[in-house]
């Protein structure tokens, strides 16, 4: 049997949610045992997750990226460079007349570990670690926003049904028919102009907020559809009916009865959505409509590097590899979270 990550699990000890869980519970559940302590679903999930080696490793990689993002100022202080200074223009010997680093491999040296950016001559390593911040802030904010919208509209459609369901369903249909990439590009200036009047100078937070809003606008439908389906089936269950009969208000039913049953799909879907937002954000910057200079950004680094392919591929390798590793680890983590929460899922 294989896990969805492609790695085999070693025998039934690591098969998520199978016999070993039951065995653990059987010993602790023994009747009359004074030390009886049941496991909460969260604990069970955590145990299954810890047994999934791929999941743990990818979680470590993701945590490493997060730590680098948080500690970026500290790292750049110790390393003695920052992403704003144009080192290549301050020290003429670093760049040739055509703007390429004089040293081999993109100017990698003891001073500039990952080399220098051609043209402006900024330090690639600090651009890279500050770039994680840009990606992560936007991806996390977008995930939170889409989750809130998706949960609210999904439950509203599924639980209230009728006209609400019809209306939300049609809105989703229309949004799904939009060519999403064209629309992401087209809505960027609109959102920007709604946030700041054209005469004002653009504040630093503007691109972050604009990209987050644009990605959220077209990013919530998947979750809403899933949650609609789940709450539709929950609505018919006995415990909801019992709550209704005892006179619980709709708000109470939604928050206390339905929502707790939706945490699994919500958490799984948002973990899987996060890497998609990372790549979408980088894609916008790659096309030149995302986060703009001087904020460091991987997508823009890749786009800039593509101009120097004929001379040196090094500029592409660092942001490209970082991106692939980051997304791969996140995808693997998402798969593992899904398995840990939902061991029955057959994939």
């Amino acid at each position: 049997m294989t896990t969805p990550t492609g790695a085999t699990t070693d025998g039934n000890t690591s098969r998520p949610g199978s016999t070993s869980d039951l065995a653990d519970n059987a010993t602790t559940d023994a009747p009359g045992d004074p030390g009886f302590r049941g496991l909460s679903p969260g604990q069970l999930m955590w145990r299954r997750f810890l047994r999934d080696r791929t999941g743990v490793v990818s979680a470590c990689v993701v945590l490493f990226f997060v730590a680098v993002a948080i500690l970026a100022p500290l790292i750049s202080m110790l390393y003695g460079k920052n992403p704003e200074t144009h080192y290549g223009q301050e020290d003429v010997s670093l760049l040739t007349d055509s703007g390429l680093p004089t040293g081999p491999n993109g100017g990698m040296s003891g001073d500039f570990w990952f080399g220098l950016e051609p043209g402006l001559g900024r330090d690639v390593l600090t651009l890279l670690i500050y770039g994680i911040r840009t990606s992560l802030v936007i991806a996390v904010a977008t995930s939170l926003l889409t989750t809130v919208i998706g949960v609210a509209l999904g439950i509203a459609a599924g639980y209230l049904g009728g006209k609400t369901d019809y209306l939300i369903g049609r809105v989703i249909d229309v949004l799904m028919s939009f060519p999403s990439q064209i629309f992401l590009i087209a809505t960027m200036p609109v959102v920007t102009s709604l946030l700041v009047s054209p005469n004002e100078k653009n504040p630093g937070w503007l691109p972050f907020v604009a990209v987050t809003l644009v990605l959220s606008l077209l990013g919530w439908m998947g979750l809403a559809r899933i949650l609609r389906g789940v709450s539709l089936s929950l609505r018919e269950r006995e415990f909801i009916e019992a709550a209704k009969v005892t006179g619980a208000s709709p708000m109470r039913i939604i928050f206390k009865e339905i929502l707790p049953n939706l945490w699994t799909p919500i958490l799984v879907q948002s973990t899987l959505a996060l890497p998609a937002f990372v790549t979408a954000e980088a894609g916008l910057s790659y096309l030149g409509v995302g986060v703009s200079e001087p904020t460091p950004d991987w997508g823009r680094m890749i786009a800039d590097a593509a101009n120097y392919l004929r001379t040196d591929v090094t500029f592409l390798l660092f942001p490209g590899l970082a991106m692939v590793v980051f997304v791969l680890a996140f995808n693997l983590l998402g798969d593992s979270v899904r398995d840990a929460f939902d061991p029955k899922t057959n994939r």
Partner: protein
Amino acid sequence: MLRFLVRRTLGALVILLIVSMVTYALFFAIPADPARLYCGKTCSPENLALIRHEMGFDKSWPVQYWNWLSTIFSGGTFNGVHCGAPCFGYSFDKKELVGGILADRFPTTLSLTVGSAVIFLIFGIGTGMLAAHKQGKAADKIASSLSLLASSMQIYVAGPLALWALCYSTDLLDLPTYIPFTKDPIGWAGGLLVPWIVLSLIWTANYTRMTRSSMVEQLSEDYVRTARAKGMSGSSVFMRYAWRGAMGTIVTVFGIDLGVLLGGAIITETTFSLHGLGQLAIQSFIDSDLSLLVGVTVVAATLIVFFNIIVDAAYALIDPRIRLA
């Protein structure tokens, strides 16, 4: 079936109306002179006045939208150029009819889509079926790991890397260009080979994963077990039972993907400087060429909606349990 098609087509028309209306409204939400938007960046004052007059930009956007919509059915004359129905308007930036530009660009996107779709369908489904057949064995593990790695690649990473590895540093393959198939079939394939490889690499990975998981799911179904129990050979169970069951999912996803791809692969076309619909979309956006952008958007949305209907109809043919009521 006929009732289904009629109903879905009507629904699709409503959706397209909304999409075009939103696109239109969106562009009037940008604080800029709409005439200047139509006129493009290099715009003379006379040209601007002409456009204002011709397009009636003093009117509110709903009126203008209505004019645009009625022009589709009735045609019109722009800048001395007659445009018969269906008329998508006139690009004052490119001084051409939008319909003509779209028709010029579509073959590139079509070639890109068809070529990579053939590659990723063959390799994706093939590898996925192999992995499902050898479930848990080495072949499965290798296929699953590789497809996971490839599906974490992005076109904007894989594309420039492939350009560097195959074209700039080694001269193995030609630089991407579009040569019409009718003119030179071999040059057509040669010029698009690198984009096909890159585009299909990522899609192959997705189709491998999808095929594998739906085959594994089908193989654990009761009817497959029954077929095995009554002594059917492994290969006919695999092909005639499991594959037929898994095909529904694959056809659905493929139909939807095809609609999206035909609407223009923006990042791929930008990376390889191919002048297809996707590149046209971003170009018209940069040039603030509203009529062109609305045209591209509506064409892309039409393709998405159209293929969704095709998928639903095809689904009923593949899976007799589903009836289109």
